[in-house]
């Protein structure tokens, strides 16, 4: 069993805002208890899958390790009881691809899979580059200082995904706020009540309200796109059919919600973290400036470095064995992606930011059937931004202390103040 203080740290949203604390906790686990059970206060026990190779092992066995039977993200016992009570026995507040197992997962994924493939995205590249360029111009117009997270990286991927979804630009601030209230539900700077969450009922109610607001918004979108289909992702979801029938209401709303949240927040986090890393590593910035062919490697290293999705949970459908540990049917497992991406058995000098790292087989997008659907879009957005920005960015350094969001699920920098020279 993992010691109590370490177990408590890996579920604590505040720990993820303190890089040294969370890195230290997972380093201890990888070195001393690479696949052991933890029981943080208030939680059911779960196995912590901390090693890169074990994350791959679990993720590729989708029939043995399910997403949907138990909560897919960390959830205290009392909260799970309340969720099940209000959701007809389900432990999930939404039912997106993330909460599905086969055959539903495959059927629902196929609906938009082709849309997200590189050959389809190619037709949108010119427009994405145009948007990227407008944000580079905006950064230049800021003068020599900005908060790169708030002024650029929160807004650019948001604009791209909302445009491809068909959400009007005037609604983007609302979508950003709802996203931050959802993923930042434990962060007093971002959550709906703008204060630390001390009461479980109040915290859950705030999350349910956010989900309710998303549903109200996208229910209207569905009605509109059914009446007036367009060339956007919302029309694909609204008019999609599974086995000849329209998507279930709950599943359709969940599809919109995951696209409208994870579809930009993860890319925003990675972009902000990439700039932070360049500002802290002038040798890497100089190397990248001198050779733009290193941009793809820089992107992959930024994705590994930030790893915006901190975990997903799985549950065993039968007795299993991983790394010699006997996992019983029904056991809950935490796949820790930041831990896998700092695993010294998979990465040389894992705590160094190295844009020429090769190979760089990080698990930030997951692995197996649930691997991130939007990974190619995210990479395309980031490549376009950095290809437009780097030729004009002469220097960059930190202009204050960057701050990380408090969340144990999806998070990254919430503030990256920088000072720079551009032309």
């Amino acid at each position, binding site marked *: 069993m993992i010691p109590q203080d370490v177990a408590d740290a890996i579920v604590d949203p505040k720990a993820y805002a303190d890089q040294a604390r969370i890195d230290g906790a997972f380093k201890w686990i990888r070195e001393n208890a690479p696949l052991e059970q933890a029981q943080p206060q208030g939680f059911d026990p779960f196995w912590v899958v901390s090693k890169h190779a074990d994350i791959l092992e679990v993720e590729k066995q989708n029939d043995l390790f399910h997403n949907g039977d138990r909560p897919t993200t960390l959830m205290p016992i009392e909260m799970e009881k309340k969720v099940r009570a209000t959701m007809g026995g389900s432990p999930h507040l939404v039912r997106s691809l993330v909460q599905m197992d086969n055959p539903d997962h495959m059927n629902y994924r196929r609906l938009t899979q082709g849309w997200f493939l590189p050959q389809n995205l190619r037709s949108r590249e010119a427009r994405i580059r145009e948007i990227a360029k407008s944000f580079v111009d905006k950064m230049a117009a800021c003068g020599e200082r900005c908060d790169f997270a708030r002024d650029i990286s929160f807004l650019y991927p948001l604009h791209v995904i909302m445009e491809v979804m068909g959400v009007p630009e005037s609604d983007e601030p609302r979508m950003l706020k709802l996203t931050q209230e959802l993923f930042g539900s434990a962060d007093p700077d971002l959550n709906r009540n703008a204060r630390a969450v001390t009461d479980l009922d109040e915290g859950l109610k705030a999350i349910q309200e956010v989900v309710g607001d998303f549903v109200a918004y996208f229910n209207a979108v569905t009605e509109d796109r059914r009446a007036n289909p367009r060339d956007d992702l919302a029309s694909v979801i609204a008019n999609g059919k599974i086995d000849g029938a329209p998507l279930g209401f709950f599943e359709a709303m969940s599809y919109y919600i995951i696209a409208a949240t994870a579809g930009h927040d993860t890319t925003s986090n990675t972009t902000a973290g990439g700039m932070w890393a360049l500002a802290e590593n002038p040798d890497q910035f100089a190397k990248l400036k001198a050779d733009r062919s290193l941009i793809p490697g820089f992107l992959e290293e930024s994705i590994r470095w930030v790893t915006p999705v901190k975990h997903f949970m799985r549950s065993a459908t039968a007795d299993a064995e991983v790394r010699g540990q006997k996992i019983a049917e029904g056991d809950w497992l935490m796949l820790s992606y930041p831990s896998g991406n700092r695993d010294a058995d998979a990465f040389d000098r894992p705590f160094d930011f190295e844009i020429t790292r090769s190979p760089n087989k990080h698990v930030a997008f997951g692995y*197996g059937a649930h*691997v991130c659907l939007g*990974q190619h879009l995210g990479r395309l957005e980031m490549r376009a931004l950095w290809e437009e920005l780097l030729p004009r960015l002469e220097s960059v350094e930190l202009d204050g202390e960057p701050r990380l969001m408090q969340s144990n699920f999806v998070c990254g920098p919430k503030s990256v103040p920088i000072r720079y020279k551009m032309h």
Partner: protein
Amino acid sequence: MSDAEPFLVWQCRTCGYIYEEAQGDPLEGLAPGTRWRDVPDNWICPSCGTSKPEFDMVEI
């Protein structure tokens, strides 16, 4: 298949990873020019672990 025939492109059905015969995938031990049929049957997608039969030939 003779070397004079055009190189083909194969794509993972799960994640979209692209294997181009012309370029191979040296990090996976597949030299440039390695034809799809010469890729070992037990090879899996380096991005998501999908098995070789779950790839489709595509035009890029």
